[in-house]
């Protein structure tokens, strides 16, 4: 099967995109975790068994 070899510039661009996406996803995970705690409040720990 034919393949496409990325140029150095394209590899560099892909690394840049991957890094940015990783950082954004990590920050969103933290942000949504914090928002969940804020929206639900301390009651999240006070649920009937």
């Amino acid at each position, binding site marked *: 099967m034919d393949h496409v*070899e990325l140029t150095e510039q*394209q590899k560099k661009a892909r690394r840049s995109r991957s890094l940015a996406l990783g950082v954004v996803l990590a920050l969103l995970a933290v942000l949504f975790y914090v928002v969940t705690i804020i929206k639900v409040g301390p009651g999240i720990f006070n649920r009937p068994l």
Partner: protein
Amino acid sequence: MAMTNEPDALAVADSALVLDGDAGDFFALLKPRVMSLVVFTALVGLLMAPGEIHPVIGFIAILSIAVGAGASGALNMWYDADIDILMDRTAKRPIPAGRIPADTVLAFGLFLSVFSVATLGLTVNLLSAGLLAFTIFFYAVVYTMWLKRSTPHNIVIGGAAGAFPPIIGWACVTNSISLESIALFAIIFLWTPAHFWALALFKSDDYGRAGIPMLPNVAGERATKNQIVLYAALTAVSGVVPAIMGFAGVTYGVIAAVLGAAFVWYSVQVWRMADGDKKMVPAKKLFAYSLLYLFAVFSALLIDALVAKFFSAGV
């Protein structure tokens, strides 16, 4: 891009995924300079609004509004790629420069639109999410797809898209639209024509080449200059309205009046500029000052609101 049989290379079927654009190019699609103005004016609306919002929720609100604004910028670049390539000012954008395919930009813009509106709706309130959705629709569809190429009044009406952020910021706190937030909207709405027509005057060749019916190209320099003075005067009046309505202080009113008077003065310099002037120095000065004006007026509003909250808290 070289073809090879090396096992560590991408399969040809995936070649559509090979992009030259890096993270910076995707960030450029969000029109960061426009976004910074959106963030700032939305923040002022949010902080001026009566009531309280949790700082983290407030941060998410501003982030969502910023991403929504960026999404509409990306959709604008997707639709306008054919004319962007014809103008010096926009020819280096990621699509005309060939660094990111148009389809990818469309997907990027649509995804961010849905994501930003959904986030604002789920974390803040449905009114602000609805307003953000309408703003994106207004900028991407009403302005970009319809008005921009069809009428010289494109930015008069289209300017509403850029004026919505303080209303959204206000609605994030109060879950309502009020006369005060509409007054903030009016400042940006009335400011936009003088700001863009100053740019259109010294970039009229660019717009003419792209076939965009900006006022200088359609109605001529003289008519544009008349309109600039009119809108600058209306902007100056709208700038002091918050003080007249009583939701900003007297000090703010004086500052806004001085800034507004200077805005009118710069617009009159443009009006006095000879028709056919190639250097267009007064128009360039008005364009630069218009940016300073909006930033200064909203900074003064912000400081005024923070000082008022500080004292009303009894500290």
